[in-house]
């Protein structure tokens, strides 16, 4: 008993119980995903019994593979399309809003600041329902890709603001001032100094938005119109309970790999951008994690 206590509370040693919990947790969180990915390479139709390695569910199978099943392929295309559109709209919008909110101290700044935080904490179903209702009753916006994009941008933009604003506050105003002092107009100072300095945060935002969009189910589902606007999560949701083939795992795997590659890419770019900026560099991982809202 005493030995156990010493082992646990040795003030110089590592807290072994915590080590165990942490590694068990990591195994618990990752192993199921790894197994699901493994089964996407199953040669047979089963998602539970290993029947040998094959890539049939990716492209080999002429009707049911991700490549050849029109439903899976279209879900993949729609997911990637929406993610690209979402990044293209919400990142510029969010960067501008972050700049405005950080640098503008007028009377309107505070309400916008609070409003901006709401999408972060509103349960998704509340947002989905309200967007659906406003689109069909007031705006007359057709459901489908446009509506999905509008919905996704609405919740993505706040994440961009939070990430970019964090970096803006750590940059401070002196670089812009130095630039204007050296003869740059405000627009030039923004373009030549502030935006390059914000680049790591912008990259982090792009990645977060990509992940948010790819991951989103509720809003995207509510605002979808037909099969062509179904995304990967919708596809998973609607077929996961049935005896679907490992093609579903393959579809999900493609998305997982795409996301992780994007994140890794962003991380490398981030490091390059912050090559001369030790302070920013240390926070790279955290910025990519970006959930210190």
């Amino acid at each position, binding site marked *: 008993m005493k030995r156990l206590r010493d082992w646990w509370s040795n003030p110089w040693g590592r807290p072994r119980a915590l080590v165990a919990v942490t590694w068990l947790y990591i195994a618990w969180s990752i192993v199921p995903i790894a197994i699901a990915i493994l089964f996407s390479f199953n040669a047979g139709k089963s998602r539970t019994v290993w029947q040998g390695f094959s890539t049939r569910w990716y492209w080999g199978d002429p009707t049911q593979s991700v490549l050849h099943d029109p439903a899976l392929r279209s879900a993949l295309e729609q997911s990637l399309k929406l993610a690209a559109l979402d990044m293209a709209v919400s990142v510029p919008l969010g960067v501008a809003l972050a700049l405005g909110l950080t640098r503008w101290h007028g009377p309107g700044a505070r309400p916008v600041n609070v409003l901006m935080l709401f999408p972060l904490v509103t349960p998704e179903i509340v947002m989905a329902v309200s967007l659906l209702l406003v689109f069909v009753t007031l705006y007359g916006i057709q459901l489908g890709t446009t509506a999905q994009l509008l919905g996704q941008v609405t919740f993505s933009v706040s994440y961009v603001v939070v990430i970019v604003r964090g970096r803006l506050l750590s940059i401070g105003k*002196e*670089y812009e*001032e*130095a*630039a*204007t*002092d*050296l*003869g*740059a*107009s405000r627009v*030039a100072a923004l373009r*030549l*100094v502030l935006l*390059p*300095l914000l*680049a790591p945060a912008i990259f982090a935002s792009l990645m977060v938005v990509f992940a948010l969009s790819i991951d989103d189910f509720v809003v995207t589902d509510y605002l979808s119109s037909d099969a062509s606007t179904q995304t990967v999560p919708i596809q998973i949701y609607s077929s996961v309970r049935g005896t679907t083939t490992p093609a579903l795992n393959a579809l999900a795997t493609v998305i997982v790999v795409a996301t992780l590659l994007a994140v890794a890419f962003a991380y490398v770019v981030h490091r390059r*951008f912050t*090559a*001369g*900026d*030790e302070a920013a560099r240390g926070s790279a991982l955290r910025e990519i994690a970006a959930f210190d809202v």
Partner: protein
Amino acid sequence: MSEAKGGAVELVELRKRFGDVAAVDGVSLRIPAGEFFSLLGPSGCGKTTTLRLIAGLERPDGGRISLDGVDMAATPPHRRKVNTVFQNYALFPHLSVFDNVAFGLRRRRTSRNEINRRVGGVLEAVRLEGLEKRRPSQLSGGQQQRVALARALVLEPSVLLLDEPLGALDAKLRKALQLELKTIHEQFGITFVYVTHDQEEALTMSDRIAVMSDGRVEQVATPEEIYEEPATVFVADFLGISNLMTATAEGAHDGRCLLRLGESELHAARGEISARGEVRIVIRPERIRVEPYAPGGENRIPGMVERVVYLGSLEQLVIRLATGDVLQAIVVNDGEPKAFSQGVPVRVHLPAEALRVLPERPAGEVT
């Protein structure tokens, strides 16, 4: 090279508020072209804000700023012939040394050859040749400071504003750079407006100094004057260790002011010698003469050594006077055996030529 290139700055009744705080509260200054002018004061006194107003980074709430006689109120910062060396340099971390220095020239659409020539020249002047390709984070503090200087100087401004440029450096480097800055000033011949809270720095480098407090200018004068003839209690107190005492003045007699300090009678030859009533008097520690104890004598007051602080070349004595006031006196450490040690009664001589009567500012304005 030391030919003056213009750069006379004039501030008239300049005002700037941040919320409830008057950061700059009616500052008027006239800085002739080519001068090394320092704004000296504790943090929060408004010196940096004044500098930023000159740079155009802040908009004044009132008053006028003119450069060589031209009003600059409507000129945005990037069009003013004024450049700044920022406190933490604000070197662009994503640009190389060369690009940092060339930044302003490129904004002016200077030709590539011209840029190469001028950047090369200025980097030579600040002795940074060969480091063009480095990033700011790969430079030492002193090198960064020089890049900041080069970046501003390359634009050939009429006025260079320096906001505590040596604040982030260690003591030894500061000394070296002080001299270097002075050399560069002479070399370029433009006006330097230098903000610092370090009195020694201001005293060694400046042609003239404005001491600021609470958004106001307390005194504008040469370093000698500021040190020797502080115009206000604040100035006297801020510049070095000052011995301030409250005495009763009884007006001028033979060009000297007659003062009563407790039981003792003193004469002061400097300052407001015609003052009457309660006044503050000041004397620098190094001007106090400490003598072995003996009763009486003009401008001499008995006291007792409370503490002796060894300072290397000097010794600082803390002496409690019979009047109750505590003075600090500096004596040269000339290698003699210690004459004054703790608890020894002494006679303190406050020479009339060193004793200064200060004008009493209205209540509430002295901090």
